[in-house]
């Protein structure tokens, strides 16, 4: 009998322990009487052993070098995070000043309209109106939330904070919250400006932001 006639697939199944108990016993019996299959099985095991001989433990010096490289990377990552937290705090302070100025300007001028980018996202989330070009939004996608769909909009420049928005934190990320009719708004301010909007409770927006890894 040749290996072809003996069925290579069954032989492979046998060698990799893929056959069920009955089939394995049958093939085992066949193997004892078939020189071709027996030779194929022996070659398989020899080849496996030879290939396995190329496995080697990493030398201590290599492990030390790797440990050092990872240590440096971890320190660098820690430094970057600290810098990022500092710049987020600075951005928060700037945003607070801008918001305060905006409130004063709005009061003085009697204008309470939202910044264009925010208004566009509210229209999209509340009434399904498509975003107008020039709204400053570079990417929009939809996230799921228990009470309904949530629009997630990303912008290269920070979404301006409406005058009546309030600051809070989600995890360690600074966010601002606002409400427009039945639409809740939550804007993650850093590392990138992401505005979530939808006819859902504010708490759900915070959960969505966390679930999609938008907050740190």
């Amino acid at each position, binding site marked *: 009998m040749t290996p072809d006639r003996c069925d*290579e*697939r069954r*032989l*492979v*199944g046998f*060698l*990799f322990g*893929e056959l069920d108990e009955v089939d394995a016993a049958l093939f085992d019996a066949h193997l004892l009487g078939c020189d071709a299959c027996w030779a*194929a099985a*022996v*070659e*398989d*095991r*020899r*080849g*496996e*052993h*030879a*290939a*396995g*001989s*190329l*496995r*080697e*433990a*990493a*030398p201590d010096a*290599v*492990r030390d*070098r*790797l440990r050092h*490289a*990872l240590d440096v*990377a*971890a320190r660098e*990552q820690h430094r970057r995070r600290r810098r990022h937290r500092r710049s987020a705090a600075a951005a928060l302070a700037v945003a607070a000043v801008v918001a305060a100025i905006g409130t004063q300007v709005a009061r003085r001028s009697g204008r309470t309209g939202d910044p264009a980018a925010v208004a566009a996202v509210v229209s999209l989330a509340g009434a399904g109106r498509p975003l107008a070009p020039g709204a400053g939004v570079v990417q929009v996608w939809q996230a799921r939330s228990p009470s309904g769909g949530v629009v997630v909009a990303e912008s290269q420049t920070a979404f301006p904070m409406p005058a009546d928005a309030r600051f809070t934190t989600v995890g360690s990320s600074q966010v601002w919250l606002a409400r427009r009719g039945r639409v809740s708004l939550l804007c993650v301010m850093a590392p990138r400006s992401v505005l979530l909007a939808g006819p859902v409770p504010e708490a759900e927006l915070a959960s969505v932001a966390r679930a999609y890894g938008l907050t740190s």
Partner: protein
Amino acid sequence: MSQRPSFEEVVAAQVDVVWSLARRLTRDRGEAEDLLQDTFLRAFAGFGRWRGGDPRAWLVVICLNAARDTARRASARPREVADMALAEPAASDDPCAETLRRLDRDRVERALGLLPPEQRVTIELVDIAGMTAQAAADALGCPRGTVLARVHRGRRRLARLLEREGVRDDS
């Protein structure tokens, strides 16, 4: 709620696996060291996005991608260093046994290099890196049955090549 394991906890047991693979994917020990380091630094940087699962398969795929990127970069620039065969420090107290071991190892490496690429790569993933057939199939983008067949045929061819070279199997 179970806590996510640390990077060290996830990768600690995989250093030897990645090292063995890196040795196969590079020409010398220096390049293998660079590839090992590149692999773990990439893994460290991407650990936040890792969704769990088999850490070995995750690292092996990163290692393969890193090796591919390095090869691409290398082909785009002239060779900077002569391909010198540097003596590696002996890993054994018995220099004679160590030399024989290395000779056999060199023969196995040469024979493995003579296999068709798809058989060689599959053997590197399954028999040397210790990936499961399914993980190797995912990494190579082919059915699991194809992986098993390639490993089997590659092993047989390897055994025959070594027999021709006179390498004894001590198993």
